[in-house]
């Protein structure tokens, strides 16, 4: 067990950001914290990264207590923060070099690691360029490369693809997959359900500092949602008025401001039933359930505002 938390709590004055959570992460797995902004994911990550003290509860990383062995833990971790904060006065490779020296690596070790990582991040041609003109995706790859300079066993990623275009996101997922295959344990936070489904072996769903569900993505969907979902849109400002027309269809109906969701095992059957009732919506869409539906069911809110 690489990471073990019991009753982990973080308080800022009166505000409780993380409210007594229990988490276990095994070596070699990709573990996710899924939840909207303000759920307490970043606070949890900072405690795991031994950069923020635990308010109460038990936390062990590599079997060590961060309160007493912080530096020893951080020596074996890689931390990829949410924002792309690099030193803009320095070049791409200099950013890698200086960071490696913070770990006590020798100059030779740092140069060698930087070579590998520039290749891994596909930034070798830009190595001598200053950081400032790089695109968002490149900066993100550099931040991830930097977080790997010390060959960490555990990599913490806080919202790794927020703000990136779809192509950059897929490139990044690909890189993270490769790392996982090489044995690096990944812990990431995200509010994107596709990221959580694609990358994570197991995840916990967080809301307002608490864990509301845990398991693998598939298990969560099976437990908390149906196989398929029908999105029904009407030409109306208030979809609530149309809810009555769909009563009794499928297992569950969820009314959102801009559409109505009908949860059922067979979406096409629902669409047919709608037609049989003589209801004519603006559009219908049949899709598979996602973690977003799980979150909606558990908390009544969407992941992304």
């Amino acid at each position, binding site marked *: 067990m690489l990471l073990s938390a019991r009753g982990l709590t973080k308080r*800022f004055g009166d505000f409780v950001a993380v409210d007594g959570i229990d988490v276990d992460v095994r070596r070699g797995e990709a573990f996710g914290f899924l939840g909207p902004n303000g759920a307490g994911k970043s606070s949890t990550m900072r405690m795991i*990264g031994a*950069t*923020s*003290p635990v308010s109460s509860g038990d936390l062990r990383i*590599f079997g060590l207590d961060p309160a007493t062995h*912080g*530096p*020893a833990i*951080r*020596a*074996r*971790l890689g*931390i990829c*923060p949410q*924002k792309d*904060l*690099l*030193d*803009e*006065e*320095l070049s791409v490779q*200099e950013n890698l*070099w*200086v*960071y490696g*020296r*913070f*770990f*006590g*690596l020798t100059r030779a*070790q740092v140069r060698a*690691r930087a070579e*590998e*990582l520039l*290749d*891994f991040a*596909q930034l070798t041609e830009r190595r001598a360029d200053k950081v400032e003109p790089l695109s968002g*995706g490149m900066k993100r790859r550099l931040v991830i*490369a930097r977080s*790997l300079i*010390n*060959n960490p*066993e555990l990599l913490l990623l806080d919202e790794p693809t927020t703000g990136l275009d779809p*192509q*950059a996101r897929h*490139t990044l997922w690909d890189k993270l997959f490769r*790392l996982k295959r*090489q*044995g*690096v344990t990944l812990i990431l936070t995200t509010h994107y359900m596709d990221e959580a489904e694609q990358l994570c072996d197991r995840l916990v769903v967080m809301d307002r500092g608490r864990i509301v569900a845990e398991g693998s993505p598939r298990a969560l969907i099976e437990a908390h949602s149906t196989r398929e979902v029908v999105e029904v849109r009407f030409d109306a400002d208030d979809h609530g008025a149309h809810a009555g027309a769909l009563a009794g269809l499928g297992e569950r109906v969820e009314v959102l401001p801009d559409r109505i969701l009908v949860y059922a095992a067979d979406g096409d059957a629902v669409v047919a039933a709608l037609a049989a009732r003589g209801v004519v919506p603006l559009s219908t869409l049949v899709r598979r359930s996602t973690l977003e539906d799980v979150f909606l069911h558990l908390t009544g809110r969407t992941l992304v505002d």
Partner: protein
Amino acid sequence: MGAAGPTPGPSPTPGPAPSPSSAPSRLAAGPRPPLSWGERTAGLLAFHLTLAKRTWRGQIVSRFLTPVFFLAAMGLGVGSLVDAASGGVEGVPYLRYVVPGLVMSSAMTLAVSESTWPVMTLLKWNQMYAAMLATPQRVADIVRAHWIVIATGIAWAVAVFIGIAAIAGGVGSWWALLGIPIAVLTALAFVAPLFYVAARSETDEGFTTIFRLVVTPLMLFSGTFFPIAQLPGWLQPIPWATPLWHGTVLARSAFLGNPLPPWWWAHDGVLAAYVLVFHRLTLVAFRRRLAA
């Protein structure tokens, strides 16, 4: 990006690599040897050195030219007037009197420049301090390393200025070289409180005001250009309570080749107190801001 060219066969892995030597490497799997105090500081100094290599050119002119301008204008220009009217100050030509004051003032100005905007940059704008703390470094390390770097830079600048002043005839004794450590101590007595201020500031708006309402008046009223005995009584506590005058008094004795001033230990004491007290406060403020 996108469809990257497929590498034939297994590509070099950025994952856990086998360690070639028998000594436990900091790249090997499992627990890694802890870093000593010296190793941690050395790692941080490497960063500051890399940064300095990139930025020194922009600073070189103002660092050295400003004190030289004052040397010429006040030491030589106004100095000729003072020497003609009063035969010098405290028994020496005005140039000799003002040089140690200018040395200390320039140390103070450098100290304040280095402890304001650059610290805000590392604290907030590029958050490099936070990046350092994501490694085995600690808050005490990052403060210590940054102060070492600032002190070293000031020592160099002061040494050069003393050389220039000597050529201009403003230095009367080899003891003037003691001006370097005195300047470093005086500078740190400013670095410390300003790091604390920076740690508690959200924006850099206060910094310009500090230059105009703290640095400039201190330079002008702390015995740099004329003895503080000439100040009205109600102003006299200010040089006593602030570091610059104490450094200037010590430096003046050294530059003029005089014996240690009476109360020399009190002067050192005030400077040391500023450094030690604000060092503690800085650590507390940094921890609250970066490791909360």
